């Protein structure tokens, strides 16, 4: 099981204003707000923590099928490159990579290496973006398991959690998909 989240840095700069009143207190714990304020680059820290929370939420909802919006309760800790996120009695490990263009986080129940593949997407349409990533993900699975890509589909549960199906049989593969701005990411475990 895996959860990932990508943030397009240019998109975050353009479409969100982390400095607007009450933005930080709505999304981040007091401790996280301190981390942000002390950071050399508060903007990047905001989006790093955000992607950690989102990836942890995506993992949590696979274990506990549900849908809600409560990022603040997904409390982040960071030491070096390895982070931890807690929500109630749920704990997961989150790795983050930051490039000049995007921030990618990946949540797992155990400490593991990053497996997410990031791709740049040309289309600005949300639907096309998600189709591009899904096609790439299915192609990778088809090659890995030596099966026909045409027999694979991705279906989402009522809670929006995606799974891979071979013909109509659900495969025991953990996946996660994310897109934001010009970037997409997919993870397979």
């Amino acid at each position, binding site marked *: 099981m895996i959860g990932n989240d990508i*943030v397009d840095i240019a998109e*975050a700069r353009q*479409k*969100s*204003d982390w400095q*607007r*009143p*009450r*933005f930080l207190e*709505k*999304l981040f714990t007091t401790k996280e707000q301190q981390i942000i304020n002390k950071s050399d680059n508060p903007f990047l820290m905001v989006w790093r923590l*955000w992607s950690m929370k*989102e990836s942890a939420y995506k993992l949590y909802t696979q274990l506990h099928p549900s*849908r*809600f*919006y*409560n*990022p*603040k*309760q997904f409390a982040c800790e960071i030491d070096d490159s390895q982070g931890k996120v807690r929500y109630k009695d749920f704990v997961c490990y989150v790795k983050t990579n930051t490039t000049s263009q995007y921030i990618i986080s990946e949540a797992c129940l155990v400490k593991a290496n990053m497996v997410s593949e990031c791709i740049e997407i040309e289309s600005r*349409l*949300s*639907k096309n973006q998600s189709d591009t990533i899904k096609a790439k993900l299915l192609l990778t699975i088809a090659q890995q398991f030596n099966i026909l890509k045409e027999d694979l589909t991705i279906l989402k549960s009522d809670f*929006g959690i995606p799974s891979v199906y071979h013909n109509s049989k659900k495969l025991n593969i953990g996946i996660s998909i994310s897109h*934001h701005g010009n970037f997409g990411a997919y993870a397979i475990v």
Partner: protein
Amino acid sequence: MTNDELITKLKAIVAPYVQNEDAFKNLSKNTDFVNDLKINSANLVDIILDIEDEFDIRLENEDMEKMLDVKATIEIINTKLANK
């Protein structure tokens, strides 16, 4: 405020974040911000802050938790307005 007036105000608030214009044109009580309007989850907080400003209310974490669709959002705004 009637629900129709509320929906009109809400429509104006969500408009800048919408990524599916067809779903936006047909916005109803059953419209989901993420699944239907394809609003990025990073922008949900902006909608919440815009609602606070527009209606002069404050939304708590418990309120935000449910604010994923028009129906739940209208219910929460109505409750907050009634308690003002």
